[in-house]
């Protein structure tokens, strides 16, 4: 299927000839497959057209036309993951990169309003000038700054900066039928500070702990909470890419990687650090991730991985302390040291004894920029288990269980052997947790078959052992596997989809579709 002349012209009339294209050269650049969950095929199905809208009015008109023409549409911000892609003919892409304004930063009430084309780095850099910070997608600050665009929205900063589902304030939503809905205070007063009400909060309809992955309309502006930033207004760097050394960030900041004898001790440390409210960041970092982050090449990564393997167990935490004052820093450091003693945490000397490495890591994790190193440099592709959210230990245990299946894939030489330790995330001073298992592989049919087998087993573990609905569950197929065990939530989700998108215009293969 390709757009007929009438259809193309109708879209063109909305955005102008410069901002729509159906040329194969343009289309193929969008259908080159993402490195995330990369299948052996090079390309996903082509979009019928790529459209680059600039305003709400344009998007509304495009969405309404899509409904009229029985076409589907899919929006994207930076367009990284596979969920940005078409899965079949008949879909137009709305690339929102031209919608890239920071609308407002309110210092006293600590929120910011962004369009989806603003990336995390930009918002963070502007916030830091004002002594504030915003949560960042763990994928990196190359992702959209909008709290409702990334997949879950957890990241390095979530210990003190929560995550998308909870940072979201007012929101501008163009429904799958093209209506503009302004959530909360925005709809009633035009201000951005609140996303809930009047009455029940529509935030609940448009996302859960994961977003609808392009399957429920278009989010054109969103307000997000901001947090205090105890660091400098900008960070000075020395050196040249890929080895930057921050020179102005050491004041009141400290970074450690601790290795614990077992999961129980690591969990205890996570809880104690959380309850003491001392960490600006707290993540379960493993040796593979640390090596990939610090190294500037795969060769160097291998060496570091070997070095860390002798020093770190599979149960490690990365902690960053950010003191709000000299005295606060002193107190938090003292508490951290005591907790490490109480939980038998051993500090990785590469970090604690080398100020350059420490400063480098700190900045790469405060402005998360090295996730690409971490997950993609090794093979260009990664997949794996993206757990859900609940309490930290449950999520960590899930990953430990799925890691056993990963180990088998390593033994079968289907994936990169980086061991199989969990990667976990502590959220809101330990109140919540999240876990993932990183799997790096080179996509070919047998590895891919192995991956699919792994995913099936991971699903089975989640369901049988009651670990909740993981974040990687998108698509009808997966929802239909989980739903019957999870209060038939898939039926409810489908009802929302159906109510707001009766024509199934918002391409929902990575969310849910209206099929029964």
């Amino acid at each position, binding site marked *: 299927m390709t757009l007929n002349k009438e259809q193309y012209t109708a879209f063109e009339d909305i955005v102008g000839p410069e901002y729509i294209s159906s040329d194969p050269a343009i289309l193929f650049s969008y259908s080159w497959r*993402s490195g995330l969950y990369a299948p052996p095929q090079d390309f996903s199905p082509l979009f019928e057209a790529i459209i680059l809208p600039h305003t709400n009015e344009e998007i509304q008109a495009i969405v309404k036309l899509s409904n009229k023409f029985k076409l589907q549409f899919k929006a994207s911000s930076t367009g990284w993951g596979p969920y940005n892609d078409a899965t079949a003919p008949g879909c137009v892409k709305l690339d929102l990169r031209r919608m890239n304004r920071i609308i407002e930063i309110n210092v006293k009430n600590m929120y910011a309003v962004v369009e989806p084309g603003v990336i995390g780095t930009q918002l963070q850099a502007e916030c830091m000038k004002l002594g504030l910070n915003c949560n960042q997608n763990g994928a990196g600050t190359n992702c959209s700054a909008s709290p409702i665009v990334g997949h879950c929205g957890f990241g390095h900063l979530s210990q003190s900066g929560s995550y998308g589902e909870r940072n979201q304030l007012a929101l501008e939503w163009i429904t799958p039928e093209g209506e503009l809905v302004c959530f909360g205070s925005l709809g009633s007063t035009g201000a951005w500070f609140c996303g809930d009400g009047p009455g029940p909060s529509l935030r609940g309809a448009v996302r859960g702990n994961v977003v609808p992955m392009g399957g429920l309309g278009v989010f054109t502006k969103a307000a997000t909470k901001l947090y205090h930033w105890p660091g400098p207004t900008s960070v000075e760097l020395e050196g040249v890419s890929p080895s930057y050394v921050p020179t102005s960030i050491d004041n009141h900041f400290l970074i450690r990687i601790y290795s614990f004898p077992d999961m129980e001790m690591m969990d205890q440390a996570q809880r104690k650090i959380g309850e003491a409210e001392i960490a600006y960041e707290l993540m379960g970092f493993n040796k593979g991730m640390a090596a990939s982050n610090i190294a500037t090449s795969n060769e160097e990564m291998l060496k570091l991985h070997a070095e860390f393997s002798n020093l770190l167990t599979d149960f490690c935490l990365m902690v960053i302390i950010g003191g709000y004052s000299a005295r606060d820093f002193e107190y938090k450091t003292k508490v951290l040291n005591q907790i490490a003693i109480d939980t038998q945490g051993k500090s990785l000397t590469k970090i604690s004894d080398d100020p350059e490495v420490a400063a480098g890591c700190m900045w790469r994790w405060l402005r998360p920029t090295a996730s690409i190193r971490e997950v993609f440099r090794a093979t260009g592709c990664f997949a794996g288990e993206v757990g859900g959210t609940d309490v930290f230990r449950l999520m960590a245990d899930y990953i430990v269980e799925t890691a056993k299946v990963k180990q088998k894939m390593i033994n079968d030489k289907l994936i990169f052997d980086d061991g199989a330790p969990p990667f976990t995330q502590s959220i809101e001073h330990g109140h919540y947790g999240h876990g993932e298992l990183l799997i790096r592989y080179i996509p070919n049919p047998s590895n891919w078959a192995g991956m699919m087998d792994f995913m099936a087993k991971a699903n089975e573990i989640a369901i049988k052992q009651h670990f909740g609905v993981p974040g990687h569950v998108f698509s009808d197929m997966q929802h239909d596997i989980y739903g019957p065990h999870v209060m038939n939530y898939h039926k409810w989700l489908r009802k929302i989809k159906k109510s707001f998108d009766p024509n199934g215009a918002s391409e929902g293969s990575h969310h849910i579709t209206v099929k029964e």
Partner: protein
Amino acid sequence: MGLEEFRDDMTTCCRCSACKFVPLETLKGYDHVNICPSISRFDYRAFSGGGRLGIGVALLDKQLDYSSPKLREIIYNCQMCGACDVSCKYAMDMEVLEPMNAIRSEMVKHGNAPPALDKMITSLKNGGPMLLEGNAGQGEWASKLGVKDYTKQSVQVIYHAGCRTRHDKTRWAVAQQTVKLMQKANIDVGIAMDEPCCGGRAYQMGYQTEAADKARSNMESINKLGAKTLVTGCAECYFAFKVLYDKFGVKGDFEVLHTSEFFNRLVQQGKLKPTKKVNLTVTYHDPCHLGRQGEPYIHWKGQRVPGQLIIFDPPKEFRRGTKGVYEPPRELLQSIPGLKLVEMDRHKEFAWCCGSGGGVIETNPEYALWTATERINEAASTKAEAVVTGCPGCESLFETAIRKNNKNLKVYDIVEILAMATL
């Protein structure tokens, strides 16, 4: 190298978009986050480094046809500035710019390069300059300098002015001052009245054979001369002699230096003394081919080790833009009394391109000017009075951009600044 050789690099692209942005650690505000002029101007993903690699795979898979006009528009609306390559390699072990060069080479082979470029290549093949306009006489610029002709007399130092300087009268002063400064420092310098084109720009435009041929013929004659050093004030020539010729396996037995490097050494050694005050606040623009692309070529021949990790046998050291020429021009500027150097947000390895490279100035001057205007605005935001750089290509485009935008900025070649303080 053929495009097929880069399949692994291209299929390593994870679609992260890092190539659209400055290395993210460096950003200090909302502005100046973009690094790629092409996607910044044309917006479709196809115009980014990553988009181009996807297109490369589609070409290899025969999903796309080399004859497509849109393909030509995409492939040639790119300055080949290499910024995408640097930003990508902050994190990744893969080539970006090299496959992009290979795609252009295929475009040429398939006869789908822009006609304007073909015209320049014909000129190159005929021993002429790679210019569409500007036709000042060959060695005229040096007629009053009393400088040796290295094709006739032996010299220690060759000064290669470059086509863009020789054939544009407005650039002559820089070349003349270069020679005068050398003379002041008692350097045994020579020029060629009939200077050959370096051919470097042919490579960026996709004419790899022509560039390699030119490199070989140039080196045949230059190597014979026995000079110790080749100095050039053009970043593109610098890149050709230093990096490209090395890549082509015709590296000369002499050192290649940019004027900023050469003169900085002389100043550091006390052979030139900038004593006159130059009361200016300036910002320095790193030309792409002197900065990130100016880093030495690294020869490597090997293959990817089979298995689930991208490593190579023998190990491959990637050129990440780390070792470009960044400090010498800055040191030189800082040695000028009275002069204050302020940095633009995007500098060194993540400098924004002036806009003229990759044949863009010839094929899409409007886009070239758009790119330069972005840079001029960035320079103006530093409150500098002047932009200093080290490439005639950047300089003339900046001047046009300033004129067209009514900006109150001056443009200097770094040699002009040194000359003000020294001559």
